[in-house]
């Protein structure tokens, strides 16, 4: 099978570091990525607070280890599909911070021209297939993306993210069953932060997340999503196994949501205590965990850390400046892209505004 080399440098090909399996370069790259995601989301929160971003906006703060650890080991032509807490996943797959921020601002230079917004980030060219706002809605779609890979005899894999609450949807159960029947190259990843909005998972399920896939014959794996190195290692191996025909896999990735569900929701409140979140912040911050590990192994000093932070802050400031300067979508495009094909005959719109023919692009 002709396969492009995996994007992530393997341990043997790069200079060894004080941490087995990772080169110094790789460690710094993963640290920088996570810090970039953190600063990006903080910038988004700031922009939201002054009204530059509207609507629903869900940040990924606390879950950066999974974005970097699961997506970075993928090949460029692998596919990622996910829910609405996806800003950092989009960046991890390769959408620029500028294009993501401009989309959050609803501007024409956003990755969806301002039509999608925070919950619907896409770049089909690089295999980032959204950005879906119906809890569980992306799971059949991701299963279909994997089905198409298999239909064409390709060797890509599809990574399909969801929150813990999504495993209670019928779409999840139906999808796992079909993926198993047809041995599809799909990895379902639950970002298990323990909560769906304000509902703890244990209140809406008597089983653990991990137990959900066995009945369908899909192997389950539980991993620590706050450990970016372990996560990276795990997905690098799992993606290759699936590429080589291992069939669908189910990953229960334990993680923490350091913020409220969305911008309108406080970090803690009636449904979870401040102590619970403080403890997680103290013990399970994926960025601090990697920083400390690298420092202990002699792979990072405080000046380097500061330099990385300054650099990614500048990237995020640039993204916000870019987004702010980007024009609003042209009002004349309101009816563009409702249909891909303008039928020569008949009217697609009857609201009297779109003209007699369809306006497509």
């Amino acid at each position, binding site marked *: 099978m002709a396969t492009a080399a995996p994007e992530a440098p393997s341990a043997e090909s790069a200079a060894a570091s004080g941490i087995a399996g990772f080169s110094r370069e790789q460690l710094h790259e993963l640290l920088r990525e996570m810090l970039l995601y953190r600063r990006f989301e903080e910038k988004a929160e700031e922009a939201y607070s002054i009204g530059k971003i509207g609507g629903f906006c869900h940040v990924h703060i606390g879950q950066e280890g999974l974005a970097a650890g699961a997506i970075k080991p993928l090949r460029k032509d692998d596919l990622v599909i996910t829910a609405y807490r996806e800003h950092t996943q989009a960046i991890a797959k390769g959408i620029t911070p500028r294009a993501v921020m401009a989309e959050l601002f609803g501007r024409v230079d956003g990755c969806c021209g301002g039509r999608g917004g925070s919950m619907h980030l896409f*770049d089909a060219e690089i295999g980032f297939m*959204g950005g879906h*706002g119906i809890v569980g809605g992306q799971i*059949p779609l991701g299963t*279909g993306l994997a089905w198409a890979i298999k239909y064409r005899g390709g060797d890509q894999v599809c990574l399909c993210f969801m929150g813990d609450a999504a495993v209670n949807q019928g779409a999840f159960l*139906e999808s796992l069953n079909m993926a198993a029947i047809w041995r599809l190259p799909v990895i379902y990843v639950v970002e298990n932060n323990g909560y769906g909005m304000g509902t703890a998972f244990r209140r809406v399920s008597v089983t653990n997340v991990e137990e959900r896939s066995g009945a369908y014959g899909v192997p389950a794996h539980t991993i620590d999503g706050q450990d970016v190195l372990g996560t990276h290692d795990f997905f690098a191996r799992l993606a290759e196994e699936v590429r080589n025909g291992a069939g669908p896999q189910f990953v229960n990735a334990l993680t923490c949501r350091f913020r409220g569900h969305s911008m309108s929701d406080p970090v803690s409140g009636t449904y979870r205590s401040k102590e619970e979140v403080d403890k997680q912040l103290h013990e399970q911050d994926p960025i601090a965990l990697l920083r400390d590990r690298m420092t202990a192994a002699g792979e990072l000093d405080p000046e380097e850390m500061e330099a990385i932070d300054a650099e990614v802050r500048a990237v995020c400031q640039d993204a916000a400046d870019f987004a702010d300067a980007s024009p609003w979508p042209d009002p004349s495009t309101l009816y563009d*892209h409702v249909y891909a094909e303008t039928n020569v*005959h*008949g009217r697609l719109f009857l609201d009297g505004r779109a003209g007699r023919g369809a306006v497509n692009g």
Partner: protein
Amino acid sequence: MAELTYREALNAAMVQEMERDDSVFIMGEEVAEYDGAYKVSRGMLDRFGDRRVVDSPISELGFAGLCVGTAMAGLRPICEFMTFNFSILALDQVINSAAKMLYMTNGQVNVPIVFRGPTGAALQLSAQHSQACETYYVHAPGVKLATPATPADAKGLLAAAIRDDDPVAVMEGELLYNVKGEVPDGEYVIPLGVAELKRSGDDVSIVTHGKMVHVALQAAGKLAREGIEADVLDLRTIRPLDADAVLETVARTNRVVYLEEGWPFAGVGAQIAALIQDEAFDDLDAPVVRVAQADVPMPYAKNLEQLAKPGVDRVVEACKRVLYLVAEA
């Protein structure tokens, strides 16, 4: 030309399109080994193999969504619903995914999928198996809908739907599958958005779609015996809508009855009536009258079912009403 049943014509369209394009496949409940619940896909498994003719589990939401996902990746799935009643379980994927994908992605990801199967009532199947689902689909911008009434239209419209780059629902009728008619041989495609005058007469227009075309033709026959000549305009596709054809018949007869199988509340007829009053108000000599299913779930009892369904006599009476030959009901 060959005489085919409606069922055979649909089959011919799928075979025609699968022969010319490897990205076309069919998935649904019972479509492969069982030859289709209504035998529409008969023989296709033998011809194309189980890579392209795929039996799904009974998971409408799941397999519809899976098919939408394959379309996002550039395949051209034919997603068969055993009947459109069951597609209500899949509507999330039809509306939230298929219909909106192109728009949300700013034109990056189109969804060239066909959803097909029978819609509407057969005989005494009762409330949950007897509904016309057209309006659920055409309500959403992003979806197209074809409703073939004859074998020739079935072949030509299904072929067009498969080739179309957008989500197209093709709604058939359980009671149509055995209807016979002349169907052009060889490659045959009818462009979406072209209505057809199935009968012409200058006194009154019966505008309709799908299975009701046959009811309209029977009503027109009855009216003719009384000296009233009716146009029967078959829309063939609801979205895109051949508005010009509607306006043309209104301009000629000045009197319109819309006949549909579905419920009247926010139905297709309501949309057509709105179009006519928007654009042809001055052509009307009488208000548009709609004949639809009674606004109740379909009852089982034979007599009640008959009362609920839009039948020939109600159409005849509606035509006389717009001609002011009978008093208000």
